[in-house]
């Protein structure tokens, strides 16, 4: 039902000539109107590149992208009137106050002075920034900046919002606050496409998602689909030495349907029911007199998703969205 799709891409390819990097290698996604869609992936997987193509900042080399019924290559001007973009790097003007930033965006979105001002004040209030509205940005905390950045994306009340790693680098409280904001926006009918490195965030917010790796989609579906392929809990057992690991492996192997992750003196099992598996594992290890140095139960991370999907950990040396080096924001 194409009429209800906010975003539809077909085989998007983007190659950055510098270093000949295929940032996107045939990506097709469908984002339903009114839903939160997640692009999950590590640094360098192509998430940001896709968002930049959809928000008309960058053009694709090939493939088709439709945003709210408009082809990005033919009518970028129409799309710009319908979208809001908030980034991982708070792109607000350092030299202006919060209020001035929002007024400026309003004016650039063709609002009258009064409209822009009214909307700016309204947004500052919604995001709990009223008191800080007339303060210089350098007095803002990281969380406040991110909220201002998000409110800047909302100035023109766009029906479609792109959020590029909205909570990366935020403390847990600020992250919770931002999640509430995003949920409120969706309740209000906004469609949101967000990128994230956090499985927990995708699970909490997204109705459906794709997992990107090196510019390709390696999994797609709902968060629970992903968890089913993955298991609910990771049981990480640390041994005193590698000999312990060697003795433990035959005892533990049949406890998980998934591949075990082994890292020197550490073994991780991804399982559906953590506590019972933990108890069984300890019973067996104790029976075989294998000493355990530590045991931790945790939720699967993006890393675990990658391990399960690709058999390897995420590349940690990835240059964030594979931009040509040096250009753009300093980091």
């Amino acid at each position: 039902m194409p009429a209800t799709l906010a975003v539809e891409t077909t085989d998007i390819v983007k190659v950055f000539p510098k270093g000949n990097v295929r940032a996107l290698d045939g990506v097709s996604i469908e984002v339903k109107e009114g839903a939160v869609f997640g692009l999950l992936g590590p640094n360098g997987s192509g998430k940001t590149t896709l968002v930049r193509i959809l928000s008309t900042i960058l053009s694709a080399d090939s493939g088709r992208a439709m945003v709210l019924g408009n082809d990005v290559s033919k009518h970028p001007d129409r799309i710009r009137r319908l979208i809001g973009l908030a980034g991982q790097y708070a792109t607000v003007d350092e030299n202006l106050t919060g209020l001035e930033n929002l007024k400026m965006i309003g004016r650039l979105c063709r609002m009258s002075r009064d409209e822009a001002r009214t909307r700016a004040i309204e947004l500052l209030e919604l995001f709990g920034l009223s008191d800080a509205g007339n303060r210089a940005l350098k007095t803002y905390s990281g969380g406040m900046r991110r909220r201002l950045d998000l409110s800047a994306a909302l100035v023109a009340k766009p029906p479609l919002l792109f959020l590029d790693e909205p909570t990366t680098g935020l403390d847990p409280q600020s992250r919770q606050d931002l999640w509430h904001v995003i949920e409120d926006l969706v309740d209000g009918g906004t469609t949101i496409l967000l990128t994230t490195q956090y499985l927990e965030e995708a699970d909490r917010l997204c109705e459906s998602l794709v997992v990107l790796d090196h510019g390709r989609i390696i999994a797609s579906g709902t968060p629970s689909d992903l968890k089913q392929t993955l298991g609910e809990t990771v049981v990480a057992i640390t041994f005193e030495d590698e000999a312990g690991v060697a003795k433990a492996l035959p005892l533990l192997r049949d406890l998980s349907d998934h591949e075990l992750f082994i890292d020197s003196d550490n073994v991780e099992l991804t399982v559906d029911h953590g506590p019972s598996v933990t108890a069984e594992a300890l019973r067996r290890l104790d029976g075989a007199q294998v000493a355990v140095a530590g045991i931790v139960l945790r939720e699967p991370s993006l890393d675990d998703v990658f391990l399960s999907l690709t058999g390897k950990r995420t590349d940690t040396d990835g240059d964030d969205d594979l931009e040509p080096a040096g250009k753009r924001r300093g980091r």
Partner: protein
Amino acid sequence: MTAIALPGEAVRPTRGGSSLGWTFSNIGTITWRNLMAITRVPEALFFSTLQPIMFVLLFRYVFAGAIGSIYGVPYVDYLMPGIFVQTVCFGAVSTAIGLADDLQKGLIERFRALPMSRTAVLAGRTTADLVRNVFVIIIMTVVGLLVGFRPSGGPANYLVACVVMLLFGFALSWGFAYIGLAAPNTETAQVMAFPILFPFTFASSAFVNTASMPGWLQAFANHQPVTAVANAVRVLMLGGTFSDLYTVWPAIAWIAGLLIVLAPLSVRKFRNAL
């Protein structure tokens, strides 16, 4: 942070009015934003004003004694138009730095996703730098008068001279905008800009008579825009001997030529950048 009632009222109010009207509105907004930035960093404003004042004082008191007079006018009178032109040239570097900064911080990214004029980001920057130059020229005029500068061309011509310099600075800003967009960061923008500026400002008639230079250098110095503009400003501010020697037309031709070439070049660079 409670419920955020968002779209509902449908899409952004798309206003009427010509797109040209909106382009000017956008340029105004970006200009305002850039001027606010200058006022928010008073230290930067102070030191960028201090620099031309230092130049006036140093050239006036260090070289005037040795040089004495040029074409029969006291060196301070010969010098001031040159310092003015040099200052607007150096001022254009801030266009490059400002744009490189916006690019680096991701602001240009945000602008590009807004339904605003593509040209306004650049035009708003060059216009703000034009306004700043007005301020700088006023201060330098005062300092010049204090150290003995006596423009004898009359107030009307003096104003025309200022307009010529401002337009020259504006044209250069469009060129330096290109450097700002091409540079990976502000520091590089700055080190890229000055080596381009130095030969033009110093191998010119701005500070000395080009006739004193070796022949090969004269060939360059006599046929480049800074000399043309410095001569035009002397004709207007000082009149007399200079009216017989030079006209303002080469300067006008250079300014028009630079604008016609540089502005579209930078706009194209902006569209293709990123």
